């Protein structure tokens, strides 16, 4: 039976790991290659790097990080942040990324998703949806959460599936960094709408939040950063907890 995945995410800036609270107040906390190796040895089902300042500065540092990590970690590696073009995707894949996660570019120019999924296969194209609640709907944000596009997140999710995305990484901007749990409504609405896997992200503070993301949010995979990164829980503890709640995981 297919297992639900636990994906630790490392936010990377200038080649170093950081994790922000609501995308500000960054604290330096380690070498991404070593961190990724600790996670994969600890049973992480995938590793995700999010290059958080990629849109602005020192773009090339991430390639070096990806190249080094892919020689040490033999689980899938997803890389996101600052990806603008098919050529950027090509470069990351050549460095050893298995999947890329596209956010701003997918909103501004959905052709990038169409073209890249044709060229490299849907299996490596993840579309990252950053959404914030506004009244009774959710709207898409881009540029690391700075710009509100006003686009409806649920409709956009469907459009991305049709464009060739292989997975959706859905982050609640309201919850990100707050540790109060995923936005379950958002996750389950999108997951029910599309036939591709959804990865839930944004807001994990304890292991019950991971359980809720899968059971209530209907996510195929759960992504979290802080709870793993600062050692609150290990990936192994998370898996054992999910297992005890009847969720199929790889142990």
């Amino acid at each position, binding site marked *: *039976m*297919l*297992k*639900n*995945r636990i994906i630790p995410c490392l936010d990377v800036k200038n080649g170093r790991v950081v994790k922000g609270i609501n995308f500000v107040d960054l604290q330096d906390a380690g070498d991404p290659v070593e961190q990724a190796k600790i996670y*994969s040895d600890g049973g992480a*089902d995938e590793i995700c790097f999010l290059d958080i300042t990629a849109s602005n500065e020192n773009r090339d540092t991430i390639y070096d990080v990806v190249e080094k990590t*892919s*020689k040490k970690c*033999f*689980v*899938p590696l997803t890389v996101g942040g600052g990806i603008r073009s098919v050529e950027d995707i090509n470069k990351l*894949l*050549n*460095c*050893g*990324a*298995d999947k890329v996660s596209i956010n701003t570019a997918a909103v501004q120019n959905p052709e990038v998703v169409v073209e890249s999924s044709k*060229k*490299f*296969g*849907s*299996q*490596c194209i993840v579309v990252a949806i950053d959404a914030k609640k506004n009244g009774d709907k959710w709207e898409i944000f881009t540029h690391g959460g700075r710009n509100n596009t006003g686009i409806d997140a649920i409709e956009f999710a469907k459009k991305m599936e049709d464009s060739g995305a*292989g*997975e959706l990484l859905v982050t609640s901007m309201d919850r990100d960094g707050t540790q109060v749990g995923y936005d379950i409504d958002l996750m389950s609405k999108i997951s029910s709408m599309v*036939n*591709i*896997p959804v990865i839930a992200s944004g807001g994990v503070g304890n292991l019950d939040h991971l359980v809720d993301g899968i059971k209530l949010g209907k996510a*195929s*995979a759960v992504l979290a950063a802080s709870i793993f990164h600062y050692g609150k829980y290990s990936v192994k503890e998370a898996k054992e907890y999910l297992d005890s709640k009847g969720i199929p995981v*790889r142990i």
Partner: protein
Amino acid sequence: MNVTIVDYNSGNISSVINSFKEVAKDKVNIEVTSDLNKIKSSDKVVLPGQGSFKSCVDALNKISGLVDTLNEFAINNKKPLLGICVGLQMFADIGYEETETKGLGWISGKVSKIANQNGKYKLPHIGWNQINIVKDSKIFKGIENNSHMYFVHSYEIVPEDKNVVSATTDYSSNIVCSVEKENIFGTQFHPEKSDKIGLKIIDNFINL
């Protein structure tokens, strides 16, 4: 010994290269090439494949003489060949992704879309699933039944002769996820992304 990973522009093969180099260390030479002479003279060949069945077959055919060379290597000379993901799927006679496309015809059968049972099963089948080993395969030496492997695919190979099937995995139905036919091996899952247990399969192939 020389192991050649066929580089025919089939998408992202860096993970395959990294994993084989990790396992081979300095004992085995890993070549990454589409050079026909190098393929002919190598001891073992790895045929990766990402993207669609059609795009991979088209990419193989684009390199003049490559299909003939692979036929000579695997069918006439019976040297060990490992197909991974679409690399395995191309062993079939025919594939139905994008459009009907002829495969290598090494294993009678077809490649068709996994039944999603009206959306009950999300596609692609992405993630870790257990393999059910149904016959002793040389590449499964030291691999326990029900081991987890990493999958990412929407299409499955359906061989006519079930005797070539070495493992299946449960997703919507019992999907064929590994084959062995004489010197020809294939995995639908990605050993290069399946952590230590996947590297063990690569090690087994290198040490055949």
